[in-house]
Structures are given as structure tokens and as C-alpha cells.
């Protein structure tokens, strides 16, 4: 067979397919073979900013002499054609950024030129890295933060914000009965469509929200519903309007004060007198015909349907340079980052009296906010999407015995919250000496904290149902325990993660390995074409005895093209084989063949148990894991994908984390203090 032809045809198809591929499932880990490189660069992000500058002679010389011999136009090795960087067209800028980012990564990590070639000289290497820094990281020799996108509330944020603004409860109460469990959708969740993740990996991605139409009819239904719930709560009426009797008659001045205050809170302090007047006018018009309560309610509706409620507007200076946002804008950014909701009274107050401008006050507010049960948003919304355990909730296909499912979900929720609550190292996501575990699995765990407060996550106190007793009767939440054996500890071996990365009946080592690489280590993966079935490898093994999944996989991925990725994937997935699809520890398969959780990492390090795998992850992949966690949390905080110009900030945060035992608070605080978070840039 003509090998050359085969390669080219395959490449063509891969190109065609990759057009429709998602940004989330990408290319191979940086294994550094040609093929892997090719899979990596096919990923184009449409919203890059950097233009296409002309490559200086010297760098062009380096590229010509050291790269283009293989990566040239006609049949470029690994389908990476670097000749385009020498004659860039303006229309190419997005793909050029991508291409240069890959080039920089390969050169910086020393993976290119390949091992059997002479490495680049220091001057050659520096010329590549400097070019990248000047053209993609910096602008006019200065750091910048890229244009700040306009944020629209997601469904999750909308529900939270309506709760806070109207002082009502909309979330599905934490109710358990024989028929229903705590994972049922709330009314808002049923009325309003779910958001989908954008390029940042999160559903609060501003670009994605911009591209999806506002489901207006449903949005209005949500507003109506929230106002109806509000109308039914005398407590809420009292808090917001200062009276609970619906027939109360207000003096004009009082009414104006209430309306103004509500409107100001609804737009989170975005000053706009023209709109304020419109809302007041709505009150006055309605007050002529009905009661003060009805008129206030109409004014509230008026404020809720304004774009300044659904969008987080900020005052613009139309500047190319980053500039500080106002304190109310900062307060809003902060509350949506930490609570996925609007600022509460106190945060508004420190923003309005100017004290939030002092770093000490800002830091104190972050601390206070992380002490509040509302921080659950970070576990539920950020970690849920990042680690993928929100799939347990979003996809009812995982509902097999609802009580079980809620417990599984809560283990993850409480574990991530524990990192915040006790300010632990973010590396404890991978391995820890504690675990949140369901009561039925307490065996094998050790002591528990003395106080109930420390033992149970208190974050759901506010979401308990009114029928509180019923909860305890049907459901005992996971408890914090110390780990006694060498099995549990770290979220990556929690039941939920192990379940989501398996099929119901069997483990999927490759799915688990890919999950670790993409989610924890932060590699971009792309599924290959033309995968031969496992059965083929099984057949080859034929009569050999003791064929386990490891041997089958080894044969299955023996081709060099497969190896380049699978040498990274397989050991990680196989290292978790001791955990069944539902996360139970096992030492033998159903057919009594022994389970072996072991393997060799690409650096040659061997391990033979999940615990050892976790330790290897924390050494071999530590840099990448930390970098990935920063990027993920920043992307969530900023509502956008990370770009080359974010690198200096990411590096600074990384350095701070290394100095401070990787503490969660340091990560959060550093993001809040970063220019990306505190500043705005318009172009």
C-alpha cells in the first residue's frame, strides 16, 4: 500500500472533520512526535486578537534552516506547514496565533526539533521565544489584558441573582422523600434552557452567551414566576418594600426611595439616570390605578426586564489600555466569581463608601465571602463544570437510585468546598489524607472531626427544605473522615468521577486516562480517526493466557502513531483499575482475573497502585496541574478563554502558589488581585 498516499488522504479528512470539532476535545498531550504536533495545531480559536506581523530576517533564517525542511508546503510533516508564517496574510491571524502558540510550546519544552535532530542553539531558541513574546504576549512592549467581553447572566446566575435581589427562594429545596431526591430541577431550571459551555470550558463564557439568543419568552416567564413567589412571601415584601400588608398606601417620597433602591440593586450599581426615570415612571403610572404594592411590583418587573439586569454592564472609556473598573463594578465581578450571584448589602456598602479600593478591605471581603454558604457556587458551578460532575445532575441518565446519586454528587461538592473552607492545597484534588464519604462507605476510613460543624458541610443549611426532618429520615449526607488505607483521598478517586468516566457495567481506562489528562493536567485531546476495535487486539493475543485489559490495550496502541498519545493516556487510566465503574475497590474482575492498577509513565517511572499513581501525578505532572488549575479558575472568573496575553499573570499566580503551599485562598485572592480581574480594556 502506498504509505504516502495514505497519510495524505488521512490528513485531508482530519482537516475536514476538525472544522466541526469542539474546542474542548483536542489534540494529543505534548508528546512531541510529528503526528501529535499535527493534531495539536488543527485547533483554531476564532477570537484571537494578535495580528500578523512580518517575521524578521534572522528568525526567518532559523525557521528556514531548522524547521521548513520537514514542515513545508507540499507535504508537511505532521501536516504542520510553517511556511505560512513567512508570508502571513492578514486573514490568517487567528490560525497564525494558534500555530505560533504551538511552535512556542514545542520549542520552549525542547520537544522540537525531535530527539534525533540537533537541538536549537540558545540564540536560535531565544529568537523564537522572543518573537512570540513580543508579538503575542505583549502589545507595544507592554502587558495588556485583551478586550473585556460583556457578560450575560447564565441560568445558574439568574436564579441566584433573583433570589438575592427579591429575597426569595427559587432553588429546588434539599428535599428527600421516597419518590424524589435532591437532584430534581428547580422551576427556573425547567423554564429556562441550560447554557452550554463555550471555548473557556464553562457556560458563563461571554462569547458563547453572545452567540446564543436570549430565550426571551422563557426569560419573561422566569421573571413572572419569581415575582409571583415574591408576592407570596410576606417576609420578602417586608425586607424589600418595608411593609408586608398588600393594601398599604405609600407616600410618594417613600415609594420613590424604594423604587430607586431596587433599580440600583437590580442593575448592580450601573448608573443610568435615563433608565431610572423610566422605572419610576412605571411605578407612577401603575400607582394611579392600583395599590402601592402592585405599583412597586410593576416597577420591579420593569427593572428586571431591562438589559441592565440580565447583562453586567460596565462604564467604558473606549481605551486600548487597561484601566481600573469602578468599585461597584469590582464588587459585581467579585460576587459573580465567588457566589455566582449579585453583591449583597455589605459588599455594596464597601463599594459605595469607597473602602473596597483598599487592598486590605478587598482581601477581607474575599475572606468574608468565602466564609458564606454562598461560596457553594464555586464547588457547584465552577468545579462541577470543570471536573464534569455536574453531569451527574444535568444528565438524568445517571439517575440510578436517586439517593445514591445525590450522595455521590455531594461527596464531590463537599470535597471541593472543603478545599475552600479549610484553605487547603489545591493539589489535594489529586490526593489527600481526608475524604468526604457516604455513610455506607465509612468502612476503611478513620477518625472524624469532633464538631458537627466541621464534620458536615454546612453549605446547604440555607437550602434545607421546610420539611427538615424528612431530610434526615431519608438521607444522610457524606461526612468528612480521615483516610486510613491507601485507597481513598483526592477527588479523582471519588465515586462520582469514577462513575462519570465509566459506562454502567465496565470501566473505561481510556476514558479515565483522557479525563485525567484533559481535566486535571490540562492537555488538549482529540479523538483519533480509524480506531481499530479492541477485539482485534484480543484476537492477536489469542491463546495467550492471563490476557488482561492492560495487555489488550498495549497491543491495541502499539503503532507509533497511537503510542504518541496512548503512552500518556493508558497508564493513567489503567492506574485506576482497582476502582469499579461505581468506584468500589476491587482486586479481581468478574471473571476472577486479578486487577492490576499499575503502569509506566512516559518518564519511565513505574507505579503499582492508584495511590502511587496519584503521587506520581503530583511529581511528574505537578507544574502542568497547577498551571491548569489557574487557567481553569481564571477562565471561569473572567468568562473567557485564556489567551497568550494572560501568560504573565498566570506565571505570577503560579509563583505565588509555589511560595504558599498551593493554598486555595491564595489562588482565589491572586485572581482577584490580577489586572485581568480588576481592570477593563475595550480594544
Amino acid at each position: 500500500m502506498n504509505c504516502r498516499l495514505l497519510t495524505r488522504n488521512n490528513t485531508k479528512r482530519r482537516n475536514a472533520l476538525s472544522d466541526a470539532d469542539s474546542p474542548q476535545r483536542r489534540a494529543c498531550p505534548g508528546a512531541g512526535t510529528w503526528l501529535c504536533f499535527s493534531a495539536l495545531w488543527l485547533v483554531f480559536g476564532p477570537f484571537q486578537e494578535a495580528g500578523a506581523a512580518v517575521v524578521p530576517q534572522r528568525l526567518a533564517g532559523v525557521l528556514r534552516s531548522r524547521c521548513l525542511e520537514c514542515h513545508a508546503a507540499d507535504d508537511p510533516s505532521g501536516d504542520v506547514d510553517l511556511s505560512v508564517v513567512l508570508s502571513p496574510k492578514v486573514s490568517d491571524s487567528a490560525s497564525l496565533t494558534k500555530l505560533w502558540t504551538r511552535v512556542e510550546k514545542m520549542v520552549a519544552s525542547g520537544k522540537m526539533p525531535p530527539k534525533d535532530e540537533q537541538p536549537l542553539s540558545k540564540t536560535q531558541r531565544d529568537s523564537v521565544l522572543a518573537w512570540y513574546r513580543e508579538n503575542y504576549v505583549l502589545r507595544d512592549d507592554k502587558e495588556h489584558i485583551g478586550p473585556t467581553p460583556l457578560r450575560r447572566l447564565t441560568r445558574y446566575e439568574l436564579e441566584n441573582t433573583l433570589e438575592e435581589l427579591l429575597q426569595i427562594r427559587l432553588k429546588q429545596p434539599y428535599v428527600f422523600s421516597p419518590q424524589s431526591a435532591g437532584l430534581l430541577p428547580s422551576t427556573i431550571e425547567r423554564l429556562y434552557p441550560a447554557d452550554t459551555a463555550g471555548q473557556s470550558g464553562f457556560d458563563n463564557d461571554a462569547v458563547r452567551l453572545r452567540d446564543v439568543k436570549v430565550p426571551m419568552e422563557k426569560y419573561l416567564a422566569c421573571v413572572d414566576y419569581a415575582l409571583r413567589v415574591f408576592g407570596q412571601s410576606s417576609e420578602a415584601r417586608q425586607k424589600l418594600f418595608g411593609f408586608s400588608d398588600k393594601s398599604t398606601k405609600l407616600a410618594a417620597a417613600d415609594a420613590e426611595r424604594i423604587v430607586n433602591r431596587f433599580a440600583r440593586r437590580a442593575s448592580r450599581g450601573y448608573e443610568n439616570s435615563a433608565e431610572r426615570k423610566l422605572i419610576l415612571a412605571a411605578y407612577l403610572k401603575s400607582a394611579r390605578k392600583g395599590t402601592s404594592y402592585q405599583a412597586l411590583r410593576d416597577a420591579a418587573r420593569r427593572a428586571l426586564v431591562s438589559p441592565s439586569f440580565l447583562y453586567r454592564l460596565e462604564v467604558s472609556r473606549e481605551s486600548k489600555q487597561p484601566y481600573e473598573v469602578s468599585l461597584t463594578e469590582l464588587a459585581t465581578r467579585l460576587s459573580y466569581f465567588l457566589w455566582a450571584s449579585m453583591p449583597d448589602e455589605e459588599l455594596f456598602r464597601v463599594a459605595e463608601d469607597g473602602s473596597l479600593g483598599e487592598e486590605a478591605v478587598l482581601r477581607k471581603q474575599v475572606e468574608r465571602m468565602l466564609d458564606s454558604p454562598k461560596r457553594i457556587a464555586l464547588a457547584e458551578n465552577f468545579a462541577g463544570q470543570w471536573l464534569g460532575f455536574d453531569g451527574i445532575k444535568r444528565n438524568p441518565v445517571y439517575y440510578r437510585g436517586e439517593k445514591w446519586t445525590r450522595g455521590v454528587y455531594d461527596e464531590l461538592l463537599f470535597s471541593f468546598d472543603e478545599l475552600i473552607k479549610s484553605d487547603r492545597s489545591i493539589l489535594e484534588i489529586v490526593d489527600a489524607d481526608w475524604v468526604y464519604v457516604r455513610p455506607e462507605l465509612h468502612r476503611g476510613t478513620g477518625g472524624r472531626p469532633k464538631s458537627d460543624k466541621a464534620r458536615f458541610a454546612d453549605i446547604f443549611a440555607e437550602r434545607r427544605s421546610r420539611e427538615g426532618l424528612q431530610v434526615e429520615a431519608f438521607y444522610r449526607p457524606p461526612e468528612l473522615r480521615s483516610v486510613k488505607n491507601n485507597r481513598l483521598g483526592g477527588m479523582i478517586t471519588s465515586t462520582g468521577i469514577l462513575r462519570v468516566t465509566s459506562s454502567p457495567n465496565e470501566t473505561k481506562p481510556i476514558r479515565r486516562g483522557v479525563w485525567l489528562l484533559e481535566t486535571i493536567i490540562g492537555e488538549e485531546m482529540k479523538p483519533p480517526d480509524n480506531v481499530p476495535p479492541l477485539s482485534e487486539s484480543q484476537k492477536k493475543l489469542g491463546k495467550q493466557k492471563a490476557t488482561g485489559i492492560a495487555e489488550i490495550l498495549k497491543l491495541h496502541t502499539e503503532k507509533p502513531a497511537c503510542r504518541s498519545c496512548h503512552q500518556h493516556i493508558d497508564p493513567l487510566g489503567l492506574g485506576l483499575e482497582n476502582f469499579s465503574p461505581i468506584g468500589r475497590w476491587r482486586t479481581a474482575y468478574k471473571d476472577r482475573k486479578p486487577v492490576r492498577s499499575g503502569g509506566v509513565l512516559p518518564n519511565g517511572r513505574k507505579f503499582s497502585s492508584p495511590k502511587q499513581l496519584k503521587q506520581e501525578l503530583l511529581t511528574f505532572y505537578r507544574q502542568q496541574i497547577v498551571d491548569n488549575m489557574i487557567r481553569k479558575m481564571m477562565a471561569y472568573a473572567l468568562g473567557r478563554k485564556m489567551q497568550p496575553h494572560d501568560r504573565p499573570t498566570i506565571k505570577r499566580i503560579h509563583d505565588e502558589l509555589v511560595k504558599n503551599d498551593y493554598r486555595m485562598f491564595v489562588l482565589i485572592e491572586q485572581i482577584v488581585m490580577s489586572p485581568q480581574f480588576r481592570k477593563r480594556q475595550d480594544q
Partner: protein
Amino acid sequence: MTRSYLIPRRTFLRGSGAAMALPLLEIMSPAVSRAADTTDRKDRLRMCVLYKGCGVNPNAWDITGGSETKFELSKLLAPLESHKRDITILRGIDSNLRANGGHVQATLAFMTGELKKSNFKQSVSFDQVIADAIGGSTPVKSLVLRGDPYIDQGDPSENYLSYDLQGNPLPAEPDPEVVFSRLFRGFDNAGYRAKTVSVLDQIKESYGAVAGKASARDKKTLEQYLESVRDVEKRIGQFQSSDDSVRQKRIAGIKEIAGGSHMGDRIHAMLDLIALAFWTNTTRVASLMMAHTESRGTYEFIGIKREFHALSHFVRWRGKIPQYDKVNRWHVGQLSGFLDKLKSYQDAEGTVLDNSVVLFGSGIKHGDYHSVADLPLILAGGCGGQIKLGRHVHYQHATNSNLLLKLMNIMGVNRKQFAGSTEPLPGITEMGTFRPEVVDDGSWKVQSVKGNQVVLKGLLKISVTDDDPNLYVLQLSDGTQREIRASFGNINGSKLDVYVGSVMTVTGRLKTAAGKQVITNVNRFEVQK
């Protein structure tokens, strides 16, 4: 037998123990009288797409033998026996992809006919072209629904079938109760409409006040808000103008609907909703994703505990086939039940089924190979007497976008082109003049043997009877077959599945193993046009 899946809502809520109740927007106003149903027949045509991902087992789907009008239904199609005169089974229609697709591509191309560059924006889907042209005369322009709860988070594009005229994906609605209130409550109330109109006017005022102060970039984003306002205005206008008495009378008899607890119930409920929406002329265009193309859904209500998508990769493990077939048969059964329903509703002229066209199918044929040639497709309903029914039409590599163009035309959309296609598919409104099978002219035979190099011509078939994904067979004129072995179903980088059903000349090495002649190392093949 027609069963009603409309469980009274109250009963459902009691049964499920759920503590919450959805807000039913408003209670209906009394009927506003207008003229009786004198609408033109062409204004009563309806179109529905029922999509099920994950392909089929070709051996169980394909009808063998017979003629265009006389044929026996296959194993998977058997649930349609009572509707044999209401359907036309389409064979030999290929996706526009022309190369084996992944899940995403198969989903994207099914209703749009093509793939666009961006992974999120696509070209418009054919249902939305129809909705845009005819949806203006009904309260709701189109319904976009899903019954499969699975949402793929890894790749959002997999979750959509319908794209609006600007190429934005339209999220499918998952909750039957919410759809119910939107269709038969809410805007049917004139008071509620008036209230909403005034709210929308307020929004436009606010927009004016707010947008003026936003940055140029933000202003662009905000425009989207205004666009959504205009959409609702249009919709309200449609409710208003179609406030006729026939519709009101029909709606008055409808009981509230509950979704049920499992996927099967939800799919039933969605199909019932479509039937009701068609009958009451609330909408004339609908699509339902019955199974996601990468569905991790299980069908425990029919005893299937494995994920549907996992079952669809059956070649690696043939034990899955009975379960895979069972799920696919269940989907065909749903189609059959849906046709019962449409038939049971009387329209002014004939039944609702007579005035509808239903397209049922999947974006891939072979569930494991993801082959995109010879898609499994069924048309049902006469579309106002236009479609010739009771047939099994076998095309020779027709293109899906031609079919979509044809469907648009018979739905009254005067469009000459869609997704690169300029020819409406023949053989829908008239008999097919195609030969049912490739005609064996006697030339299918071994043409030359030199050493172990053999050149032979024959009809390429897929082998799923053997536990071997790399095995194909070449049918020769003398009735014998030769096996072809192609690594990963690949020859020179081309997936062989694309050419299954075609006559081809193959050059390769001849080996004899276990008494059988097998062609390996194929280095050349040519497909007969």
C-alpha cells in the same frame, strides 16, 4: 392500538411526590369566534422530523428483494406493518459528507445538509427554512424538541439539529410540561398577550436608555437582546392573527400533560404534543431528537441497561446486537404510534396524517462504522396527497440535501437550492424509475490473476454476519463471493463503507485461508459510476 400518554397533570404531580408545580402562565380566555376552517389545503401541510442518533444494524434494517411496491418489511421495520400504505422507505440516500462522519458531523449535516467552518454556527437547517416560509400563519413558528435527556458537554454542536436563518443553533426543549404550557396556554390568552406586549415595549425603551452608554463592542452584544424581543413580538402577532374558532375549540378539549418519569414516557409525551400541535394548527413544523447521537441513555423501560451509544458499536461485541436491535425497533415503534395518532385526528379534509409529512431517520447508517452512505430513512404521510406512499424506493447514491430540498418544495417553499443541492429528489411525488438494485450485467468476475495479484469486479457488500469489522465481501455474477480484508475498513485512506452497494474493481493479493479465498493488501480500487 392508540394509547394516550396524556396523564392528567395533577395525578402526575401527586404520583411523583414532587413538591413543586410549574406556573401555568394564565388560564385561557373564552374562544374568540372567527370563520370556520376554510383554509386552503396547502396552508394545512405539516412537516415533522424524528431523529434518532446512533445508526442501525444494516442487516436488520435493510429490506431485501421485492419491488418498489411489493416488499416485505425487515426486522427493524416490522412495527410499521399496519402503516405499510402510509410510508415510503428510502434507500440509497447518502449524507452530503461523502466520508464517514463522526457523531458531530452526522448530527450537523442531517438537517442542514452540510458542515460549516465554525464549530458552533452552521448554515440554516431545512425545517427552519420551511418554518420561516410558512410558520408565520401559526401561533408557534416551529417546535424543536428532544426526548433524550443526554446532553454532551464535550461538544455542544452534537446537541443541536436545527439552526435558524443566521446559523445559530436552536436548543431543543426537553420538558413536555413546559412545552405544553407554551403551546396551549400563555399567549392564547388575549390579556396575557397584551400584558406581554406592553412589557416588550418597556424593554425597548430600556434598551434605548442603556445601549447608548455602552461601549461599541458591548453595544453589539446587546443588540442580541433586542433581537430576542422582536422574536417574541412576532410570535405574539402570530397568536393574535390565528385566533380562530376551530383552533380554540380543539384546544378546549385538551387535558394538561405531564412528562412521566422515564425517557420512554417523555418521548411518548413529546410525540403526543407534536400531534396535538399539528391538529390544532398551533404549529406546522416540528423536530424531535429521540436519541442523541452519542446517547448515554439507557432503555430500562424495555429492559435495556446498556448505554444506547455503547450498543451501537456492536461489531466489537456481537452479543450486543439483540439489544441494539431492540432499541432501534422501539424507535420505529414510536414512529408507528405517532402515525396512529396523526391518523386519529380528523382534519377538514382527511386526517392530519394525510396532510403531514414525517421524516424519520438517523445521520449515519452503520452504527459502528458511522457510514454515511445509504442512510436509514422513512417518509410517512401524504403531505396533502403529494407523496406516493406504500413504496420502497432504492436510489443509487442520491444525496440527502436533494431530499431536503424536495421536502421544502412539497411543503410549499419555493426554493431552488439548498446546501449546494439544486435538484429536488425525484421519486417522491412520483414513482421511482430507478432500478431497485445494481444490475448484474454478468461482468462481475475475476478479471485477471498474475502471481498472487488479482483483479476482480463485483458488488461490494458489508459483512456483519462475521465477527470481523475489517471484512467486506465482493459479490460476483456467478453467485459466489470473495472476502476482502481492509484494515479498519480502510483502503488507501478511504473508508470502504462509503462504497458499499456499489460495483467496484479491486486489485489486491489473493490468499486462501480455511478453504476461502480472501483478498488482502488491496492497493487499488475503482468504483463504477
